[in-house]
């Protein structure tokens, strides 16, 4: 059964509050506000009691699936469990009662946390300096490319092309366009990495840089990264590291050492802060020495007199966000880094990679594995065989997984894999959970053979059945109307 809208629960005259009677002189609103600012009639808000509201939203929340409910293997999203200690720390009165305009000497603890988080992320990324300002991954990309743009402009070079591989996250070409650059796509080779010939052809004196995720969206580490970095640098470009897949490399490999000049981290992926509806996110950007002069301001610094917010960056690209980034998220990531420690963070990546490889091998017998090599933290299967043999599409597999109680993996991405299923188990899942998920995926593969129509009609156990996505996109019906 579907839940009615809150407007449909409305009953004339019902109230969720009762205010005490007025004990100051009454003044008509018409005397206080100019006529053009007044509504001719009151807004049509739902008239409901407090318990109506609580039950309505509790029922809706129970329909949701989150990482606190069960396994959530959404590829390239790193839906790892968010330790509750992070929330405890972020709710300490000294943090939640801060005001952004407080004098620096009264917020030394917060500034120290920002400074230390900058240093930790710089160490993890192998870079020289970090800005905590960007509010999410794509905002980090925007910041990073603006830094690259400022770098070339400062040197008087007119470079307006950014190279992006065909396996890239969609945000990469979108960011390129947002920054006023042009996208030049390079192909992947048969091992799933950047095709070096294609890269050589793409490089010229108009190239400002290259955006790369490593491991990439196939979950594969590009072993040619040093060659790629040399080629781009020789052509006068810089390298941008999309940190979406950094959960594979903590304490093992550093983007800075691979040759990247600018890196973003997703604290809401790699560093266990809530992701999606539980956000907000945070996408700090780290840079090598060459880009330090252009970093956004302010940056937390440690001086003899204590911690300060420095605005002394003459060539700064300016501010990327109001105040100091999503500070509460930074607190949670700081708590995570401190509770894991360097060895613990390395173990995170080792377990994430182990879990992914275990699941990949368990499923490879039942689904196609287009790139058959060890994966990192995620892997990509193809439903191409199921489609050819039984007419069952990846979408049907994903919908059927809902009936088995799991959030489906990312589907139809990366674009270079037909009927793609992109699975990222993360390190926080036990062998039992992985086996339960594998059992569901295997059962679905068998259903595809024995009863394909069953899959095509899935899901059956959700509040709604299969939705018509095309109709919803072509004729969106988003607003409630009384009639």
């Amino acid at each position: 059964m579907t839940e009615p809208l809150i407007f449909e629960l409305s009953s004339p005259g019902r109230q969720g509050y009762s205010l005490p009677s007025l004990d100051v002189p009454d003044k008509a609103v018409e005397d206080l506000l100019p006529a053009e600012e007044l509504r001719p009639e009151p807004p049509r808000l739902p008239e409901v009691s407090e318990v109506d509201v609580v039950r309505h939203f509790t029922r809706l929340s129970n329909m949701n699936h989150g990482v606190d409910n069960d396994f959530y293997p959404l590829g390239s999203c790193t839906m790892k469990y968010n330790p509750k200690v992070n929330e405890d720390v972020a709710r300490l009165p000294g943090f939640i009662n801060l005001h952004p305009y407080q004098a620096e000497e009264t917020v030394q603890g917060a500034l120290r946390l920002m400074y230390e988080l900058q240093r930790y992320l710089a160490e993890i990324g192998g870079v020289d300096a970090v800005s905590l300002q960007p509010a999410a991954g794509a905002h980090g990309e925007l910041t990073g490319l603006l830094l690259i743009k400022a770098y070339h402009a400062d040197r008087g070079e007119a470079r307006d092309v950014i190279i992006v591989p065909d396996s890239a996250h969609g945000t990469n070409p979108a960011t390129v366009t947002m920054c006023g650059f042009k996208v030049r796509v390079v192909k992947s080779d048969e091992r799933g990495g950047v095709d070096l010939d294609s890269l050589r052809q793409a490089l010229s004196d108009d190239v400002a840089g290259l955006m790369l995720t490593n491991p990439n969206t196939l979950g594969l580490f590009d072993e040619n990264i040093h060659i790629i970095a040399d080629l781009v640098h020789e052509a006068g470009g810089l390298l941008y590291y999309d940190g979406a897949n950094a959960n594979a490399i903590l304490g093992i490999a550093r983007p800075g050492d691979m040759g990247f000049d600018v890196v973003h981290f997703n604290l809401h992926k790699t560093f266990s802060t809530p992701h999606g509806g539980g956000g907000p996110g945070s996408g700090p950007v780290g840079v090598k020495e060459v880009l330090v002069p252009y970093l956004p301001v302010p940056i937390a610094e440690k001086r003899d007199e204590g911690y300060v917010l420095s605005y002394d960056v003459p060539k700064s690209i300016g501010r990327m966000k109001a105040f100091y980034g999503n500070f509460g998220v930074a607190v949670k990531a700081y708590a995570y880094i401190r509770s894991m420690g360097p060895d613990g963070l390395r173990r995170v990546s080792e377990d994430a990679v182990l879990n992914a490889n275990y699941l990949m091998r368990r499923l490879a017998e039942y689904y196609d594995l287009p790139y058959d090599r060890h994966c990192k933290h995620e892997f990509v299967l193809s439903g191409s065989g199921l489609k050819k043999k039984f007419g069952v599409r990846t979408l049907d597999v994903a919908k059927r997984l809902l009936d088995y109680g799991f959030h489906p993996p990312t589907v139809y991405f990366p674009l270079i894999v037909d009927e793609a299923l992109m699975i990222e188990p993360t390190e926080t899942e036990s062998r039992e959970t992985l086996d339960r998920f594998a059992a569901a995926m295997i059962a679905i593969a068998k259903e595809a053979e024995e009863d394909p129509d069953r899959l095509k009609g899935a899901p059956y156990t959700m509040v709604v059945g299969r939705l018509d996505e095309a109709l919803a996109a072509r004729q969106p019906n988003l607003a409630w109307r009384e009639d």
Partner: protein
Amino acid sequence: MYPKDLKYTEEHEWVRVEDGVATVGITHYAQEQLGDIVFVELPEVGQRLEKGESFGVVESVKTVSDLYSPVSGTVTAINEELLDAPEKVNEDPYGAGWMIKLELADEGELAELLDAAEYTRMLEEEG
């Protein structure tokens, strides 16, 4: 599924040339891979396109893809019906689902495109 009178690109666009005017759309294979198309973004009439340049965007329930011009030329018409009825690209990719018309800048470029047999072979090789 791949008419013999059309020319094709490796990016799965087709082009039909009549009296120096090229009509461009996407192939049956492309619409099938994309799935239900829900939005098509097309250029302005009068825009000058280079061969291989992006002239628009096609969005399906699965993905968003750039559209690439098979030849150089100036846009003389766009299929405005697609803005309200993008499903025409799925239903009739070589007819009602056409996207733009171009005044050809260089007829010689046509020779660089694939014919139906070559395009079909490419699809088979890609598996």
